[in-house]
């Protein structure tokens, strides 16, 4: 990496953290530290919500997904605007009215202490693991591509986040996230512009999109009703809405963002802002991947995008050279046919024939790449044979001009930091509010509260970094923890929905219903192939169902 890139990378990160801390000033008591002074405007809330959800994997995996499968992943976000509207109209006013600091605090007001602490424990478990992954997943990819030490990358990322989250609390997280999100969006727009400018001069934007369409990359909406297909219109609209309701409505790392709002109006506007921007933003990131795919129709591409892994295979398996030769020959043929296709678009001659040939060549090339993946796995059984997460970063490193490389790396590392900061902030808050102050030290003063909150945040930060270092050794764990999130979100949402909409429901039936629903969801995960987005719907519906069934059988407490 050039000196200019280092200056841009380090300069951007240092400037943003310094700005966040300067705008924050040292908070003097726990309320300010936890709620950030309750003065955030809608744009701060909206950008902070978006930055919390946009982890580094968003900027690494999503272009890779666009490259491999096209725009279909955007369907996952169809539920977000619906969820933002539902939350603004229902849950958010209730949080404001009850003046809670955490989402789980509301559940004690509505049900009882055991329900509050059960949901808080579920959150701590899930988000604690998630915080580790939001550091380790990008650290693995960035260190492999850059040749940096994985351990040092993990430690450096973790340390920076811990420092500003602990010192400035919620306001520092919100303030830095505003700028982080602006840099992330600006960086991706610059990437989009650069990739488009790198395409052949004779290729217009319309030509590029149509060429991607020849390979099925522009199929954004799939109306097929198959439950096993991960992203369809139906799973996006139903499962996606439930995921978004659970994530934005009950996950403290998001709830804390909008509870720091100046007023209910500002919080609602922040959520609606997220609802309006989410789909265009994800489409833009997917389009980056699609344009990288188009770029490689006219330029040589690596047969496997994780270069470090490829070098290991090259040293151990001489047959790789044959596969690389076949891939290079196919790429050359594709380029020639793509140019003929481009010409035919203007003359109208044999356009369909060229399109058929392009698709056939792509199939052959896919077969070669599948063979390479099998070879990677054969050489090293622990290796990650999925290289789509490396597509974008390796493209940036090899093709982007000086300065822009540093900016894009900053985008990826800032995304890792923003997601982790919200998680640590929320983990510290929940530990203090729902456990320490509630069950250990009820007389905790506002002044001492800030020290306890900071201590918990440091503790969670250290745990997250330790887990990140451990997770780096176990690749399959990443997928497991992602699925773990969906397993827990459904029942969690169910508890809140019962609280809001079933006035007669009481604590004990809800508590038992949550445990039963959780058991059924885990059994479904173990015994079936249903796409994981559906776990959210099933878990939520089961909590409501079990509560209604159990309610008449559990004696009401005496009111004398």
């Amino acid at each position, binding site marked *: 990496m050039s000196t200019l890139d280092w200056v841009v990378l380090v300069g951007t990160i240092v400037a943003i953290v310094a700005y966040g801390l300067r705008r924050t000033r040292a908070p003097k008591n726990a309320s300010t530290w936890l709620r950030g002074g309750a003065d955030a405007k809608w744009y701060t809330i909206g950008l902070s919500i978006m930055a919390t959800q946009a982890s580094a994997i968003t900027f690494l995996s999503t272009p890779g997904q666009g490259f491999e499968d096209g725009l279909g992943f955007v369907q996952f976000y169809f539920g977000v605007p619906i969820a933002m*509207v539902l939350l*603004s109209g229902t849950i958010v006013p209730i949080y404001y009215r009850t003046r809670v600091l955490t989402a789980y605090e509301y559940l004690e007001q509505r049900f009882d202490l055991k329900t509050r602490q059960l949901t808080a424990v579920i959150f701590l478990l899930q988000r604690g693991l998630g915080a580790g992954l939001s550091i380790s997943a990008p650290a693995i990819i960035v260190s492999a591509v850059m040749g940096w030490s994985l351990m040092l990358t993990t430690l450096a990322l973790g340390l920076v986040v811990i420092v500003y989250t602990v010192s400035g609390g919620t306001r520092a997280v919100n303030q830095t996230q505003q700028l982080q999100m602006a840099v992330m969006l600006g960086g991706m727009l610059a990437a989009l512009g650069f990739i488009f400018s790198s395409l052949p001069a004779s290729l217009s934007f319309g030509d590029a999109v149509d060429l991607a369409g020849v390979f099925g990359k522009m199929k954004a909406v799939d109306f097929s009703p198959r439950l096993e297909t991960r992203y369809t*219109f139906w799973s996006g609209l139903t499962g996606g809405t439930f995921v978004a309701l659970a994530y934005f409505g009950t996950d403290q790392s998001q709830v804390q963002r909008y509870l720091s709002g100046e007023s209910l109006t500002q919080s609602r506007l922040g959520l609606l802002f997220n609802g309006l921007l989410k789909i265009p933003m994800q489409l833009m990131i997917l389009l980056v991947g699609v344009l990288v795919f188009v770029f490689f129709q006219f330029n040589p591409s690596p047969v496997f995008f994780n270069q470090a892994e490829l070098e290991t295979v090259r040293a151990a398996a001489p047959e790789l050279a044959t596969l690389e030769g076949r891939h290079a020959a196919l790429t050359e043929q594709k380029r020639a046919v793509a140019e003929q296709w481009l010409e035919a678009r203007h003359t109208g001659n044999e356009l369909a024939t060229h399109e058929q040939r392009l698709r056939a060549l792509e199939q052959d090339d896919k077969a070669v790449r599948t063979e390479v993946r099998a070879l990677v796995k054969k050489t090293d059984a622990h290796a990650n044979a999925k290289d789509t997460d490396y597509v974008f970063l390796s493209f940036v490193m090899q093709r982007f001009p000086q300065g822009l490389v540093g900016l894009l790396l900053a985008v990826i590392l800032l995304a890792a930091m923003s997601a982790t900061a919200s998680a640590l902030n929320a983990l510290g808050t929940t530990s203090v509010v729902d456990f320490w102050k509630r069950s250990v030290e009820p007389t905790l003063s506002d002044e001492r509260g800030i020290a306890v909150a900071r201590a918990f945040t440091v503790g969670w930060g250290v745990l997250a970094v330790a887990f990140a270092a451990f997770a780096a050794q176990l690749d399959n764990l990443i997928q497991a923890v992602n699925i773990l999130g969906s397993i827990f979100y459904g029942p969690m949402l169910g508890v809140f929905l019962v609280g809001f909409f079933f006035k007669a429901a009481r604590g004990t039936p809800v508590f038992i219903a949550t445990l039963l629903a959780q058991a059924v969801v885990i059994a479904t995960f173990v015994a079936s192939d249903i796409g994981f987005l559906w776990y959210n719907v099933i878990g939520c519906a089961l909590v409501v169902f079990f509560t209604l069934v159990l309610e008449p059988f559990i004696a009401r407490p005496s009111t004398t």
Partner: protein
Amino acid sequence: MAEPGDEGRPPFFRTWGGAYVFVLVVLAVEIVALAVMSWSYA
């Protein structure tokens, strides 16, 4: 936190219902546009 009058009009809209309908209409337009694009490349 919430203040008196906080439940009032959102900017640019007569009621919150209007703001919610606007967000949902934008979503519907996006989905229809993406669906038409998907069919045109099918």
